[in-house]
């Protein structure tokens, strides 16, 4: 029997290592610029707002709202062949940055733009854990 393709597993690089290290500790780590007091995402070398050369890693609240989402049906990567239909979501974090993730813990039919979300962490391999989001209870 042919082995089923597995979902892609990110390979942290120097730049993104603090993000993935944080996720392993179940912390959502984002970069913050102390020069202009702003958060940024995704990970990069310097502040996209003021070009300050140093960004500091800080733990984000992990809270946000669902900005928009899609339910994917097309299999663009064999690792997702058995995952369709799955959601891809843009989450507006309370820190003011928008990140792409998946919403878990609820059916795709229950997704509503504007719903409150909180971060959870999911293992995608023995070494790598990634942030996802679930509806805030209540």
């Amino acid at each position, binding site marked *: 029997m042919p082995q089923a393709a597995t979902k892609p597993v990110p390979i942290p690089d120097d730049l993104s290592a603090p993000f993935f290290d944080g996720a392993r500790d179940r912390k959502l780590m984002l970069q913050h610029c102390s020069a202009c007091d702003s958060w940024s995402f995704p990970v990069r070398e310097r502040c996209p707002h003021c070009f300050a050369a140093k960004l500091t890693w800080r733990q984000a609240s992990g809270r946000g709202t669902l*900005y928009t989402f899609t339910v994917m*049906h097309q299999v663009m990567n064999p690792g997702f062949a058995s*995952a369709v*239909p799955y959601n891809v979501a843009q989450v507006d974090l309370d820190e*003011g*940055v*928008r990140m792409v993730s998946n919403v878990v813990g609820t059916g795709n039919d229950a997704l509503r733009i504007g719903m409150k979300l909180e971060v959870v962490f999911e293992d995608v391999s023995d070494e790598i854990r990634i942030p996802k989001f679930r509806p805030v209870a209540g």
Partner: protein
Amino acid sequence: MSNQPKGAIAGLGVTPMGKIYGRRSVDFAAEAIALALDDAGLQKSDIDGLLINANLSGDMDVRAQMTLGFENLSLVNVMSAYGSTAGSMMQYACMAIREGLAKTVVLVYADAPLSASRGAGQSYAGPHRYPLGGMAGLRAAYGNFGANAEYAMAARRHMHLYGTTPEQFGTIAVGQRKWAQLSPWAQMKQPMTMEDYYNSRFIAEPLRLFDCCLVSNGAVAVIVTSSERARDLRQKPVNVLGYAQCAPGDNLRTDRHPAVETGAKRSGEMAFRMAGITLDDIGTCQLYDCYTYTVLVTLEDYGFCAKGEGGAFVADGKLGPGGALPTNTGGGQLSGYYMWGFTPLSEAVVQARGQGGERQAPRNDFVLVSANGGILNFHSTIILSAQASGG
């Protein structure tokens, strides 16, 4: 009011499009350029400028000059703002000509991603396209591949804010299929009803298959020269009256909404001001349509209707044959052929010349062309007319 042309289109070449296998992009490019030269009544040796649109397959680089056999060019480059590039190429060609850097410039787009061994949907996909390092790997881990998911999320946001419906997206798709049936160049000729639209499978909700552009092997070439020189050539010159870019970017901050407020707004304002005309002067639109949603949001941002009213605006079928605003009259990228910004540009040339035959828009004094690249990151606008000015 003197709004002198910035330059003129003197030649157009469009190769056969679609599932034409076994040929390289650069070979399609050569065919398109030969067709454009013949169309213009020019010799290859008349060409002194070559601007190449970098394609998604990555096989059109500046060495194409040698494969194409051009010698002694005084202007050559590869350009990319993804799908928006056609507009910026037109700008740079006209500016170079006005500056005296070149006299006759070829703009070309060519791609050949389709092969017999895989489905069209996989043409730009596959594991090789998705690196796993760092943040790119994170994106892949979420299953966020290609443009489909991103445009689907943009469309969903628009639906949430303004009540835009699948029926309204479908109206765009059905209208463009009707146009495609009238175009000898279009890939998709079979009729499409609204029921067919609804029955097409979901790709990325809310987008169905028929909301998404085609994939094409082929090439388009356009020859640009001065408005004065174009008058002596074979075809009626199509003057370039206005052009502008707007690249909204996306810093992923929650106080900005590039998914629903695009670069068409600023780019359009600048281009119309340059051309000295208003929206009412536009007889036909050729709008970048990687997805049905792109057409709808572009119409809003150009100001044909208020923000959020794009759905209601298109609902009466005014974009289709017989409608009040004939749009994407060659079938666009949804039903015609997918050559990035060269899809709307090529059809705009046909319409401005009045060579559309069965699909000719009744009013063609001024033709509006949009191009869009990335995830609504880059936008360009061109206003074309066979008239000498907009004044």
